[in-house]
């Protein structure tokens, strides 16, 4: 069955929009919004339908968590955690890089990747100077780690939230699902092995061991009451989100409730909290460009869904999975890795999550494929800065610190190793735990 004129035009608008985002000549958010506007004028969908195609629950999760992360970032806790990492490393530079990477990875399971990097890099750089660690590999490791572990749990990044939106994956599904370990355990094992590899690859003989240098760096939490409130509300909200089904409300509503209560407490206590930023300041710091980009992304992919292009893609892909499920999953995984390395990964992942949903209605088990596309889509995006905005932010911080441009070959000498090793380990675990048990 061929494509209708509207389908061709919708597909063309989608690809031109993605190309505009990739070449970066036009602001990504503007390009995505423009794509949606053109689709509406073409008749792919009405303006009301475009708004309905956006998952506002996911947007509420993002904004709610970002508001809380804004307060958390200013509580002094990230700085305190970094100094604890330094103590834990005993002033050994290579070990410090690993501990900071692990800390960033753990934080990014709850905090947006870009926010996580902006939180961790400024506190890690003074430690790097003290131990003579080159800034570029350290900041890149922080970027890779934030990007990597954002997918381990539901809250850290858009792709797991998209899985929640498309497939209904709940908080605990990211830990254990269908009687087997899922995202968190698999990515945690992959992350730990990858960090160990990176230590031997590039960090075991880096910098200068300095017990005195590390002893001279101290970080006190300037306002303990504010820190307790910020961290406490954050943890309570995460806990409430984990037990969402018991409350019977949407995750986004819980995230926004937590954020509003935190804002309220901070505003009521007012001047008693010396270090607390104003709500206005927190709202100004929110990445509104990203919010509008994600809104447009849902509408764009929704356009493909509405014109049944995703159904056709699913029909086209079905024989590959029906004939040899393991081979199909392998192809999907390894084709995804290089693509998301050069194309913004959120659009790709959302498109394929929806396509796999269609495959699911045609009798192909969707869950192993959903996980494989989620993992490969995240791990592959560590290849270049084009794949993930978090890496672009990390690169800019490294360049500013060292006052020089970082070349593609320098970037690749770190990213390629990280990306390849993590992708291979995750592939093996994903196949053994998820794909092969479902294979025919």
């Amino acid at each position, binding site marked *: 069955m061929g494509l209708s004129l509207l389908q061709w035009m919708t597909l063309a608008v989608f690809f031109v929009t993605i190309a505009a985002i990739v070449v970066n000549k036009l602001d990504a958010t503007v390009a995505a919004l423009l794509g949606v506007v053109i689709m509406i004028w073409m008749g792919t969908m009405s303006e009301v339908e475009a708004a309905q195609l956006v998952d506002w629950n996911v947007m509420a999760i993002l904004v709610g968590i970002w508001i809380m992360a804004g307060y958390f970032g200013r509580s002094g806790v990230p700085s305190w955690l970094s100094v604890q990492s330094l103590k834990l490393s005993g002033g050994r530079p290579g070990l410090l890089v690993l501990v900071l990477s692990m800390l960033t990875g753990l934080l990014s399971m709850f905090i947006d990747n870009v926010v996580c990097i902006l939180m961790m890099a400024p506190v890690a750089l003074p430690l790097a100077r003290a131990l003579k660690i*080159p800034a*570029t*590999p350290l900041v890149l490791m922080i970027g890779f780690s934030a990007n990597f572990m954002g997918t381990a749990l539901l809250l850290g990044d858009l792709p797991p939230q998209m899985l929640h939106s498309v497939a209904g994956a709940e908080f605990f599904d990211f830990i254990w699902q269908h009687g087997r370990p899922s995202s968190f355990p698999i990515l945690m094992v992959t992350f730990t092995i990858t960090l160990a590899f990176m230590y031997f*690859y*590039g*960090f*075991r*003989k*880096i910098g200068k061991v300095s017990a005195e240098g590390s002893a001279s760096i101290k970080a006190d939490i300037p306002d303990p009451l504010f820190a307790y409130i910020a961290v406490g509300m954050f943890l309570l909200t995460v806990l409430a989100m984990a037990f969402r089904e018991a409350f019977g409300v949407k995750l986004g509503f819980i995230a926004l409730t937590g954020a509003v209560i935190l804002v309220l407490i901070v505003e009521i206590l007012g001047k008693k909290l010396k270090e607390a930023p104003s709500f206005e300041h927190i709202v100004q710091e929110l990445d509104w460009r990203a919010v509008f980009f994600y809104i447009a992304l849902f509408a764009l992919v929704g356009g493909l869904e509405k014109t049944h292009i995703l159904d056709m893609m699913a029909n086209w892909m079905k024989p590959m999975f029906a004939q040899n499920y393991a081979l199909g999953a392998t192809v999907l995984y390894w084709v995804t890795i290089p693509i998301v390395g050069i194309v913004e990964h959120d659009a790709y992942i959302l498109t394929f999550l929806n396509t796999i949903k269609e495959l699911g209605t045609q009798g192909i088990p969707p869950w192993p494929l959903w996980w494989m596309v989620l993992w490969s889509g995240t791990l592959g995006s560590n290849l270049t800065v084009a794949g993930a905005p978090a890496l672009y932010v990390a690169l800019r911080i490294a360049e500013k610190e*060292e006052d*020089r*441009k*970082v*070349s593609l*070959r*320098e970037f690749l*000498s*770190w990213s390629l*190793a990280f990306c390849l090793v993590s992708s291979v380990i995750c592939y093996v675990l994903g196949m053994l735990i998820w794909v092969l048990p479902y294979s025919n």
Partner: protein
Amino acid sequence: MFKNILIPTDGSPLSQKAVVQGVALAKAVGAKVTAFFAAPPATPIVYRNNLPVGYTTPGEHEKMIEKTAARYLEFVERAAKKARVPCETVHVTSDYPEDDILKVAQKKKCDLIVMATHGQGGLRGVFIGSVTQKVLNQSKIPVMVLR
């Protein structure tokens, strides 16, 4: 006439020829020379002419780069000493030597850049190396290119 001549080198035979001629010119006009070398960042992968050729730890790579930089800059220092021309050396970490040549020329108030048509990059530009080409295009001070 010229007071401070910037001589970038990448250690290639042609750039060493440019060093010798640049120093001779400095002697003739009574200028000092500023020798410049841009070393690549110390990564685990070792590159030659933009192609990965091996692996080493960044620490060892850095030592290797330091040695190479010292050797290349020492060649200029020796030539200058022999000609009794005052010499200063500048060594930076960068994958973009053309940008740094221009930056150093401005910072050190150089009034002439003397460099070879090609460096280690060989045939990257068919008639003229890409670094030299970029310096020629962007420099605000005279550039003398030697074959």
